[in-house]
């Protein structure tokens, strides 16, 4: 069982970490390994490990091996803050990666200021993360506003007239509804209903019945993969046949195809990675290498849409450490600004975001629109 | 003497089951009255109605002229009507002394607001010392001083009964309802208890008992009220009740235990008459 294997590895690593080893450069990884986001967090950690092993195989950084200290934040913001504290003060990691969900990342952020340690944010999409004036935050995932901006040119081509929203009732979902809603209005598309659903909710037929009765042509959905599977099945059951576009980057199309079957046919998804068509990614060789290694380790292919973030995250951190020339938090923070390489989902270089003087770093990844057709992922021609 | 408690055409029904059909009697101040009847006659139900644990389906109970309808049990206690319980008569996890201290709850209620404040800042105060003295006096009075520091739940059954009485007396009632106070007591304990009942009356407390021990009932009561199948079938002084054909009939209809009870009652009366002669 892959997840079990990785968790055991994580413990072994954590155990190893308790013995002080000055000959390694430690990177703290703060991810949800239990709780509702356990699956995604585990994928990210596995991706991170591939990057770490790759770097170490090439001889490490600054003449030292890198070492990931992986901690579980239990999908809980309080725990995420506590874990950050432990990683920084107890394990003395000079840089962190985390913490998957926006609420988790937001909880960690004050700790970064307290201890002046930088963190690479690999998944969270809330706008707040880069606009609240935290100069220790560097994000490679797109906030929903950026996602909406990249999607804007496709709106007219899709022929959208009126869109309803069905979003997760949290920062992730509501943020997406706000940003996409604004963008759509600017493009002359009407915005109808904005329905929400709770994170753990399993039966959305009430919301879907309402959406079915509305006169819009498109439903924009923001949620994680498990709920998307449920939604597509329930839409099929209700005979709800409208254009569906999902956002947020946690969709995992392969899992959708495997679990929702033909119910997912025709659905469209905005993603930040194209593992199905490596030749269309910004760095095809790297993509293929990563996917090959992922499969070699016995992980399900479906996980790559999450795990590539962990992979790119650690690579970005490695670039920063190399540029910094030392493994000190202040030097790494400064060096993040000069990181510039091509990640699996586009160039990784940080632009300033947020209030002047204490800007956070935001990279601008590529966003792709894909469609599920006959059980396969295709890039629709618009 | 004036009426202290009047039960005015009270009826209790549980769904279709009639527990009390139409109960009507008075207790006068200073009396000792017993409520008797075969098992299931509705005696405990009557007690529960009088003390607010049960709402009657019809009729009303008045205590010192105040209607008790709708009053919760603790409010009725505060009017001066206290009771004991048939089965569980103590706070089992507390010491006997603390049991009585809990019973003195109302006596400590002089000025609740300032008291709560005193409590929080830690002033125990004179009030608390006075309560402890009261508790000691009450225990002494029922003869349990030696047991004061024992857990009430660990006492013998008869002693638990006494704790129950001390608790009820701690509320300084004008009238006390005793629910089968001597059941489970041996003969000598019962004798002591009868003396205690008389002493309670001497303090000016009116008593109403539910009891199965016929000799005891006959000995202690001024008046007896007999219930059967939720109906009042006889009322009067012990001698009259003992010979009432309706009462004998009611008890004959029951099992052998009840018959033995009535036989004992008659026997005890005979011996007492013999003693008088």
């Amino acid at each position: 069982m892959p997840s079990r294997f990785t968790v055991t590895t994580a413990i072994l690593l954590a155990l190893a970490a308790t013995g002080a080893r000055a000959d390694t450069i430690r990177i703290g990884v703060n991810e949800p390994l239990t709780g509702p986001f356990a699956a995604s967090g585990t994928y990210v950690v596995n991706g991170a490990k591939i990057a770490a092993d790759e770097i170490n195989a090439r001889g490490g950084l600054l003449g030292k091996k890198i070492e990931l200290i992986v901690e579980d934040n239990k999908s809980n913001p309080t725990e995420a803050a506590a874990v950050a504290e432990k990683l920084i003060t107890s394990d003395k990691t000079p840089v962190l990666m985390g913490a998957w969900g926006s609420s988790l990342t937001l909880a960690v952020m004050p700790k970064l200021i307290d201890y002046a340690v930088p963190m690479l944010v690999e998944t969270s999409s809330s706008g707040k993360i880069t606009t609240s004036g935290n100069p220790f935050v560097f994000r490679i995932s797109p906030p929903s506003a950026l996602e909406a901006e990249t999607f804007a040119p496709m709106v007219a081509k899709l022929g959208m007239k009126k869109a309803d929203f069905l979003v997760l009732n949290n920062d992730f979902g509501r943020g997406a509804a706000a940003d996409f809603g604004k963008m759509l209005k600017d493009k002359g598309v009407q915005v109808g209903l904005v329905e929400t659903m709770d994170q753990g909710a399993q039966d959305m037929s009430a919301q879907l019945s309402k959406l079915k009765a509305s006169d819009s042509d498109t439903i924009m959905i923001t949620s994680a993969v498990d709920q998307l599977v449920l939604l597509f099945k329930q839409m099929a059951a209700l005979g709800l046949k409208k254009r569906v576009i999902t956002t947020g980057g946690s969709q995992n199309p392969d899992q959708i195809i495997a679990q929702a079957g033909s119910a997912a046919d025709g659905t469209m998804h905005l993603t930040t990675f194209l593992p199905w068509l490596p030749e269309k990614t910004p760095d095809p060789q790297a993509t293929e290498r990563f996917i090959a290694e992922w499969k070699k380790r016995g992980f399900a292919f479906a996980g790559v849409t999450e795990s590539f973030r962990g992979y790119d995250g650690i690579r970005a951190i490695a670039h920063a450490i190399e540029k910094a020339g030392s493994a000190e938090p202040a030097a790494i923070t400064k060096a993040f600004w000069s990181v510039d390489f091509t990640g699996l989902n586009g160039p990784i270089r940080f632009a300033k975001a947020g209030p002047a003087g204490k800007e956070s770093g935001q990279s601008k990844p590529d966003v792709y629109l894909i469609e599920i057709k006959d059980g396969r992922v295709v890039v629709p021609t618009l | 003497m004036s009426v202290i408690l009047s039960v005015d055409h009270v009826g209790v029904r549980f769904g279709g089951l009639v527990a009390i059909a139409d109960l009507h009697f008075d207790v006068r101040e200073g009396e000792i009255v017993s409520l008797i009847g075969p098992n299931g006659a509705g005696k405990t139900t009557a007690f529960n109605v009088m003390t607010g644990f049960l709402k009657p389906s019809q009729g009303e109970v008045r205590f010192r002229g105040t209607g008790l309808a709708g009053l919760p049990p603790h409010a009725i206690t505060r009017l001066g009507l206290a009771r004991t319980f048939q089965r569980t008569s103590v706070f089992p996890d507390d010491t006997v002394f603390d049991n009585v201290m809990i019973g003195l709850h109302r006596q400590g209620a002089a000025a609740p607001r300032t008291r709560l404040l005193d409590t929080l800042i830690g002033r125990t105060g004179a009030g608390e010392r006075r309560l402890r003295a009261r508790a000691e006096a009450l225990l002494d009075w029922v003869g349990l001083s030696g047991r004061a520091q024992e857990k009430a739940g660990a006492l013998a059954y008869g002693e638990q009964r006494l704790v129950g009485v001390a608790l009820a007396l701690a509320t300084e009632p004008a009238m006390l309802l005793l629910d089968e106070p001597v059941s489970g007591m041996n003969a000598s304990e019962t004798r002591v208890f009868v003396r205690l009942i008389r002493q309670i009356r001497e303090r000016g407390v009116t008593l109403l008992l539910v009891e199965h021990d016929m000799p005891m009932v006959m000995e202690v009561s001024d008046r007896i009220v007999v219930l059967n199948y939720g109906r009042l079938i006889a009322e009067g002084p012990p001698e009259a009740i003992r010979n009432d054909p309706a009462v004998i009939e009611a008890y004959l209809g029951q099992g052998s235990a009840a018959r033995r009870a009535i036989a004992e009652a008659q026997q005890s009366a005979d011996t007492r008459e013999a003693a008088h002669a």
Partner: protein
Amino acid sequence: MDQLIQHLVNTLILGGTYALLGIGLTLIFGIMNVVNFTHGALYTVGAYLMYLAVAALGLNFFLALPVAILGGLVFGAAIERLLLRPFRGADIDTTMLVMIGAGIALQSATLWIFGGVAKAIPSPFPEAPLQIGPVSVSWLRLFVLGAALGLIALTYALINGTKLGLAMRAAFQDADTAALMGVNVRLIDTATFALGSSLAAAAGALLGPVYVVFPQMGGLAELKAFAIVILGGLGNVTGAAIGGFILALAEELGAGYISSGYRDAMGFLIIIAVLLVKPTGLFAKAERIG
């Protein structure tokens, strides 16, 4: 109007499984006086057993269902034997805490064994829904409703028509008297807990294919089961059955016409409202005191 009809159909479909969940919980409370905090975990176990049987063992869908239900029965019996029996005579709070401990352990064990990634159980029913006028219902959900109603009927028959049921009803009225009359109360306890657990597992096994299967799926189901049981009156089987449909109705209409964000709050608001108006539940009979 079409929307309303669709909501009512959804209610019916959802209500069947809610009722199933509620009945299992209320039985255990009524007969054993145990607030079963493993109910949600057993619901999860039922769903994973179904997944194992269908996806891993390749069993036929209709064969896998009884296997999962039987598995729930065995799990329930084991929990009663290993965890509840040593606490016989303990107060309701203690057994409740034992059940909380067992629930935590069971749920974490499923996470440990199966990992956090949700699993889907393939169903043999066609994807295209049954379309009647403006209303659509999936075949799978129709089957689930039928199966749930069938199981409820079976439970009723068991309670009202068998010797075991008679003994259970006797224990429900008064365990001490039942014991005096020769009823093996220990066996009844095991049977009751196993039955209640198998109903939870059945709900999980039926809903697993409808939704997806993941370790935390039981948490919300458990809270809803509590709501249903309170609605119907603790220990009242018929009340729980009706309570299931009422909760489903409230959720559907609440989400459909008020606000979908508060959908899951409906159940709890109902609980509070019911307890204010009729604290013993909507369908409780008058209780005898004294």
